[in-house]
Every structure is written in structure tokens, then in C-alpha cells.
């Protein structure tokens, strides 16, 4: 199908859906928006701010001051404006995904463009959170925009988008490694023909300095806006200290509801450091392909970060549309698909049994998040394997790959 026709049609369909009553049903769903991305909490924060209260003095508001400033001044959040903004975010993200695909193939357009855009716009993990007006849609759009700029070699724009993203969601700072790797190399697919990273180390410090400058600038703006620095603990602190144990599809919340208080700091440290350890090894192993390294790291974040929503794994799954060269080497695509099918049916079901029908309990929902974690892990591991396996190519005769 023609991309120029299909893309507007898909976006228009999404916009229409956002104007139905679906968002009112979905917006308080625990799987679609976490305490850090919830639309209702954002509205509450904006209201408090406009009434002259410090929204960060209470518990519920944990969004970035930047969102607060935008939504309390230039872009009021109403039932009319919100669908436009969230659909626009998805459109931008899908567009960026298509641009990444084109940059990666070094072509101006292809038959696959529509499929790539559709893989983002029609992914239920993406469009349900977006219909619930979860700010994770904004984060996804920023992430893909940053990656798109990096693929096009526009380092300042990429770093600015990444700084904004980090400001909204602290764990995304890990993406700085693969994105700078990408900026120092090229976006083309080298999976089939890996080559060592040709070090241009001297050009790295300026990139990092630029990022730091943007980041500090945004921090300064946020602090000026709030008049104090309580927002740091309320927004970024939440990723590290997990103050709000509202259930979500991630792996942290249940673990910490069961935890004795004196073990809490230790395990908070373990969980956070666990996220850190993936960044460098992935960048070293996939040094020949920055986009793929970013993709895998997004998969790691989606599985293991503190307050995930469905849009985080959704981003990872939609991005796999960029790497058709790995498909023949996936070891268990049907198993991954079935795991995701089970998880996506079990999550709402057990959530309902626990919180609506009252016949289940928290363990039910926790079990379904474990299935979901397994599904994400299976997808991630298979992507890692396939990404390396491409390089060996097809085997002839009685050979098998023992190690990559």
C-alpha cells in the first residue's frame, strides 16, 4: 500500500478512536499508565500548580516540571486537546521509525515503509497506553526522534531529544551509550558483516559535554520553574526509591511490597545497578551496529525498569520491524508470540479478578506480570541471538553454531 496514503489514514483512525469514550475507560488502568505517566495525576498536578500550590509537596504528582510548565501554559489539557497531542506523538514516533528505517537502508522510500509505520501505530501495546493518555507515549516519541536524528547524523538535535527524554524518564540516560556510539559511526546495518569499532575517541568528549550542557540547562529551567529542587526527589527519585507501589506490569512493585523495610535500600540498589550493567557490554558486543545496540537496550529497559507501562515493551517490539535481516535466524518466534499472547490476555484478566471481581488477589496479577516478563525476556534473548547469528550466515552440511 502506498505509504503517503496509508500513514495519514492510520493516524486519522487513531485520532478518531481517541475521541470516542475509550480514553475515559482506559485512563486509570494500571497496565497502561504508571504513577509516573498517569494522565489523571498530570491533570491534578497542573490544577494544583495553577491554584498556586506546589504540586511536588504532596504524593500523587510525579511528572517532570517541564510537562507541568507546558500543560499549564501553552497547551491546556482538555478532552478536546489531549487526543490531538497524543495522536501527534504517535504519528511523530511512527514517522521517526520510518525515517530510521530509511536511513538504515540508505534509501528514500520503500515498500516496507507502510509496514514499519503500521507496526508502531497498530501495535496494541502502543496504542492502548496512548488512548489512556499515558505520558509514556511522549517518552516513546522523544526516544525515536532522538534515534532518528542520530541516524541522520544530526548530533545536537539527537542529544537534545535524549536530554529531554532523560529528564522525563531517568533510566533512559543509559541510551546515551548506544546513541553516542551511533553518532560516532553510521546507521547502516552491519549485522551481517560486523567490523570493529573504529575509535574516534577524541570526538566523544564534545558529544558528552553537549549532552551535559543540555541536560543541566533543562534542570536549571525546571528548578527555576518550581522555585526549589523538591521535584528532583519526586520525579527522578521515584525511579530509584520506588515510593509508590501501585501495581504495574513490571517486575519491581510486587517484590518491594513483600520486602522487609531493612532490606529495602539494599535491593533498591541491586535492582538499579542491575539495569546499569547491561549498557556497556551491549555496546561493546554490538559495536558495529549502534541502532541494534539501542534496540536491545530498550528491550532491557522495558523488561527491567522501575515503572514500565505496556508502551515500553511495545516500543521494543515495534522496533523489530527495522531488522528484517534477523528474522530467519530467530530461534523461537512462535514461542515468543504465544508467550506475549498469553501475557496480554492474562494481565487484564488477573487484574480484573483481583481488583474488580475480588475473587483473586495480588499474587494472581503478579503471576501474570511474571509471564509478561518471560515473554519480554524471550523476545530480547532471541533478538540478541539473531543479531549475532546473522553474521555467520547459512550453514551447509553437518555444521552447527555452538557459540557466537
Amino acid at each position: 500500500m502506498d505509504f503517503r496514503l496509508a500513514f495519514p489514514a492510520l493516524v486519522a483512525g487513531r485520532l478518531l478512536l481517541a475521541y470516542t469514550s475509550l480514553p475515559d475507560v482506559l485512563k486509570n488502568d494500571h497496565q497502561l499508565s504508571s504513577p509516573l505517566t498517569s494522565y489523571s495525576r498530570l491533570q491534578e498536578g497542573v490544577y494544583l500548580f495553577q491554584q498556586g500550590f506546589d504540586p511536588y509537596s504532596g504524593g500523587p504528582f510525579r511528572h517532570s516540571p517541564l510537562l507541568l510548565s507546558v500543560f499549564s501554559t501553552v497547551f491546556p489539557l482538555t478532552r478536546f486537546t489531549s487526543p490531538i497531542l497524543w495522536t501527534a506523538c504517535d504519528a511523530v514516533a511512527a514517522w521517526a521509525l520510518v525515517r530510521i528505517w530509511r536511513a538504515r537502508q540508505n534509501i528514500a522510500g520503500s515498500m516496507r515503509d507502510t509496514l514499519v509505520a503500521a507496526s508502531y501505530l497498530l501495535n496494541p501495546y502502543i496504542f492502548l497506553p496512548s488512548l489512556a493518555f499515558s505520558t509514556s507515549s511522549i517518552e516513546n516519541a522523544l526516544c525515536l526522534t532522538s534515534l532518528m536524528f542520530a541516524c541522520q547524523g544530526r548530533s545536537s538535535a539527537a542529544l537534545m531529544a535524549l536530554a529531554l527524554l532523560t529528564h522525563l524518564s531517568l533510566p533512559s540516560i543509559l541510551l546515551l551509550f548506544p546513541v553516542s556510539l551511533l553518532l560516532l559511526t553510521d546507521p547502516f546495518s552491519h549485522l551481517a558483516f560486523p567490523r570493529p569499532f573504529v575509535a574516534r575517541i577524541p570526538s566523544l568528549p564534545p558529544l558528552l559535554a553537549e549532552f551535559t550542557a543540555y541536560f543541566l540547562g533543562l534542570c536549571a529551567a525546571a528548578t527555576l520553574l518550581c522555585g526549589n529542587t523538591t521535584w528532583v526527589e519526586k520525579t527522578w527519585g521515584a525511579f530509584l526509591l520506588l515510593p509508590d507501589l501501585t501495581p504495574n506490569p513490571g517486575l519491581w512493585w510486587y517484590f518491594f511490597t513483600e520486602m522487609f523495610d531493612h532490606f529495602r535500600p539494599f535491593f533498591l540498589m541491586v535492582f538499579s545497578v542491575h539495569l546499569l550493567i547491561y549498557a556497556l557490554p551491549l555496546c561493546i558486543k554490538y559495536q558495529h551496529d549502534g541502532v541494534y545496540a539501542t534496540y536491545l537496550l530498550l528491550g532491557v529497559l522495558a523488561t527491567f525498569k522501575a515503572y514500565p507501562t505496556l508502551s515500553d515493551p511495545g516500543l521494543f517490539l515495534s522496533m523489530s520491524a527495522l531488522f528484517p535481516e534477523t528474522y530467519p535466524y530467530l530461534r523461537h518466534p512462535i514461542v515468543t508470540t504465544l508467550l506475549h499472547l498469553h501475557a496480554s490476555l492474562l494481565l487484564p484478566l488477573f487484574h480484573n479478578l483481583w481488583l474488580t471481581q475480588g475473587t483473586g488477589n495480588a499474587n494472581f496479577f503478579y503471576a501474570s506480570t511474571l509471564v509478561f516478563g518471560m515473554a519480554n525476556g524471550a523476545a530480547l534473548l532471541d533478538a540478541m541471538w539473531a543479531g549475532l547469528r546473522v553474521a555467520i550466515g547459512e550453514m551447509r552440511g553437518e555444521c552447527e553454531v555452538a557459540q557466537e
Partner: protein
Amino acid sequence: MATAVRDKASAVIGKLKSLILGTGDRNISRIRRRRKLTALLWKSLPALIVTLLSAGYFWMLAIPLPQLGQRTYIDENALQPGQVRTYWDWADVHRADQYLEGLEQLRGRNASSDEIAQHIATEFEKIGIPASTQRYSFSTTAGVTNGTNAYAVRSSPRASGAEAMVISASWISRTGEGDGTLNLRGVSSVLALANFLKGYSLWAKDLVFVISDGYLDGMQAWITSYHGVPQSNMWAEPLELSSGVVWTALNIDYPGHSFSHLGVFFEGLNGRLPNQDLINSLFVITRHTAAVPVVVYDHMDPHEFPGIKADLAGIPEWVPGSLRENDDVVEYGYRAKNILRHANYQARGQASGVHGLLHQFRIDAITLFAVPAAGPHGFHAIGRIVESTLRTTNNLLERLHASFFFYFLVGTHTFLKVGMYLPSAVLISTALMFAGLRAWVEAGWVWERAAPEPEAGADDKAGTGEKKGGPDQLKGRWVTRRRPVLKPLGIMLATHAAGALLFFTITQPWFVAHQEAYAVPVFALFSALSFAPLLLSPPSSSSPSAEAPLPLLLRALTLCLASTVTSIISVLNFSLAASLALTLGIPLTLAAPAHSLPARLGKGALYACLALGWLVLAPGEVRRAVWNWEVLRVWFAPFVCVVYTPLMLQAAVVNVLPP
């Protein structure tokens, strides 16, 4: 000495290691081991599927075995059932008789709903409890249902009224699933109880008395208005009186003149069950406080009537006499009867009484059914039972949560935990999953004969010829082929869309009004859909060695989807999952294209009948399911149309397509 022992030990360990892990290169032995394992798994897979399938079916047959199950017990310590002295007395029975007289007069002059509700509200007000009425109407495709509820709220003298208990009776009894028998004695019991309970200051929760009109419709109007949930096809007056969160509810159904046994009905809408503590408490109280024998549903316990025990257990006449009298056989029959009754309600998502409507708002509710008989019990027993049960639930400090929400109540003393029956459906669904994965692997590989030189397009796993080819290894090898999934996915999506269309059709007024006339054409039209792929898709031009055949892929995906749906529904509504496993299990595993065209068409027609036969064969069932969906939001009808029928149609398509 010590070193010698250590050496010997390490030598033995080394030998064991080489025995298990093999000698030589670690990677090579690992690959060999993996290949051996996969070859073994592949070879035994058909047997495994059959084993799982039969194990599942046998497990289902074994569920009523007398050896299974455990005794019921009270889990929530706060309940303390039967520990109070009851004060309900003959004066209250006399008052109930007086109320009954008033109601009989109303019945005698064929009073309207409004009149009855007004009369009841006035009686409540005479007692001194704030009361009101609520008019409502439901518009369904089958017509409009009107009525008027009466209700009264007695505020708690001891607490803030944050919680409440409901005591209800519907105007029409549940006898014959609402066949029109009036529940006059149930209503007079509620009135007399209101009068009696008001005199005590020990209530920690508000008491809400509801006399709902009709059988199920009145309570649906009342409870949805109470919780402020709008329903598009319902109009109801807003409630003038309100109270707190309702935790428990008792519904009294007393259709006869007297009763011999007290039965309990507990299945709610969409298969939700109340906490077992409530049922167990009622049984304890009924036995020990009121000395009334208890039964599950209205099934008499065969052990109580030794003369006719085989008939009571539902054991057919043709069973030889010695078996018919065997206690284990009788117990099996009795349990099977209870389980089937339960599954009949639960799988349809149907409420077995008015209590079931309260379940949708997380209220644990049951119906006390006074099994009609010539005697010996009457108002005196029912009053004491309700009084004591209310005293018990009055003790609750939190919602009922201990005990069980997933169970089979196979007798008044015995129940089955979820672990005892759930595996049966899950085993069948696992068999379906393995069959699906097997078909998927089969679709991805093809045996190529005698091509000595390696061909382009041979995959890295060509070496697995060893694992599948066995002795044929020299004559050919396994090569991969493409599995284009878009076409089968498109067919699946189309059948589910057709299912949605079917549901839309059967909920149209013209269909409901002239069901007999339209059932056959609709059946024919939708069955024809399963033959459509035959016309639309000419046999694929590419050779089967390059591309997997469509029916095989469709079969793989259908089996995987059916397995997923079955295993996931099993935690929500086991009876529905079991019915799915029973109806889908064997047909789906046997679906495969035959070689001759007539055989293909015949098989396809058979499967289409399995998918859509209910349209023609069970018109009453269809009408009831549609009414349940429209008024009570029971999702059985849409589920059958959008999940069951399409899955079976997909199997029909698999049969019809050329191999």
C-alpha cells in the same frame, strides 16, 4: 589414605561426568545431546499429545469420584456461625402469616406491580423503617419489561452505616428458573424479619430489605441503580434511600407451603462464585440452630433416602442392580449430578438465583431455597436461620476473603479445591498447544528425497536430518520452507469478524421476532463462509517444498489460539473452559484436509454444523443467552459467537482446503 579416597572419588565423578556429558569436545557433546533430546521429543510427540488429551478427558470423568475432595470448614474466624441464641419466635411467625395474608389478597385481585410495591413499602413504613419504591423498565429486542421494586433501609444503631447487608426476596421464585411461581412466603419472611430485626440494637451494619419485582430484572435494576452504574437499555428511577458498601447478601426463596430441606444456590453472573465461608456458615447454622437438613441446590442427598438412592443420584435404569445399590456408585452419581448442575449455570454465565446479580458488585450472596414439601418446616425455621446467619455476617470486620472463591461444591460437606479439577482442562489445552506447535514445525520443514548435492535455500539446521530422518538419512534430508502467515492470519481474522457479525445478527429485533424462520438461512449463510476460501484461493502456485501449505499453517495457528483461550478462560470460568476443551479438543486435533473433494466437503459441512448447529437446534437457548446479555451483561452469547464459532469455522476451513 585420605588422598587415595579423594583420587578414587574424583575418578568415579569423572567417569560419571563422561557418561552423562560425553567425552571429547564439550560443545560437540552438547550439540549431540540436544539433537538426541529433540529427536526423542519429536518422535514421542504424537503419543504425548494423545496421552495428554486422554489424561484430560479421564480427569474430567474422575472429578466426581468419592475419593476426591475434602470436608468443608469455616476459614474466617470472625464468623463464629451458630454461636448465638436466636430470638425469633412464634409471635414473629404469626406476623409473617399476617403479611402473607395481605400478599395473597393482592395476588387474588391480580394487583399491578405498582400496587404490590406500594403495599410492601407501606408495610415497611408501618414497622417504622424508611422505605421507598423504584420503577424500572428494560427494553430488549424481545420486548419491554416493566416493574416496581420496594426496598427499605434500617440504619445501623451501632455504627456509621459504612457497610450494609442485604436481605432480599424476588416476587417471582427461582422455581423452574423463574417460571412464574410466586415467592409469597419469601416476601412475607422478609417483611416479618424487618419487623423483628428492627427490635435489636446489635446490628453493626445497615440492613437493606429489598423486594424485587419479576425474577431477575427487578434486582438488576435495583442493584445497578444502587451502585450508580448506567445501563443503556434500562430506565430506572434513582433510589431515594441509600446505604453503605454491601458485603454480604441473603436472598430468600420460599415458594411452597412448607419445606423439608433448605437448599443453597450460589452461582453468580459470568461464573463468579461467592466466598465459600458464607455457604459453610449457612450450612452450620441450618443444621445446628434450626435443625433443618441442608442440600445443595434442590438435590436430595441419596444417603438420606436409602430406598430410592439410585434414582436420587440420577443413575440410569439400565445399570445393573448390584451397581445401582453400590454406595460408591451412588455417591459418584450424586456428585456428578451436582457438578453438572453447577457447570450448567457457570458455563452459561447464568445466575442460579437472584443473589447472582449482586456478585457483579463484589457482594458475596447466596439464595436460601426452601425445597417445597408437605412439611415439617416453615416460617419458624427460616426466620431463625436468617437471624443467625445475619448475626454471623454482622461479625465481619473485613470482606469475606479467607476461604475459597474457586471450588466445586459436590455435597453439603464436601468440596473440591481448584487444584483438583483445573488440570483437566489445562491438560487438554496443553495437548492442543503441542499439536499446534507440531503442525508449525511440520509446516517449516519438508523431506527432500535423494538430492546428493546441497541445494540453495537449505537452512543451517539441515543437519537435523539426523534427528528426523532416522534410517532414511541417506536417501534425502530435511530442508526448511517458508511459512507465510499473513494468509492464515487473514482467514482467522475474517472468521472472528464473521462471528461478530453473527452476534450482531442474532441480537436484531427481526431475528428474535421470527427466529424459527430465520435460523436456517442464517445458519446456511454462515456455514457457507467456511467454503468461501475454496473459491477465493486457487491452489498455491509455488511448490510445497518452497512454501508451507495453507491448511497446515492455519491448523497450527488455530490450535495454538484455541489452546491459549481455553487455558486462560479456565481461571475465570472453569465450566466454560471445560466445555470449550470438550467441544474443541478432539475436532480441532482431527482437523486435516482429506484427499478427495467430496470427503473434504463432507468434513467441512460436519465442522460447520459443530460450529453453528446451536442456531437451529437450540432456539430457546439462543433467546435466553441474548436476553442475559442485553439485561444482565452476561458475555456467554458474544463469547460463543466471537470465540467458539470462529475457532470451529477455522477447523472447517482446514478441512475444506486442498492439502
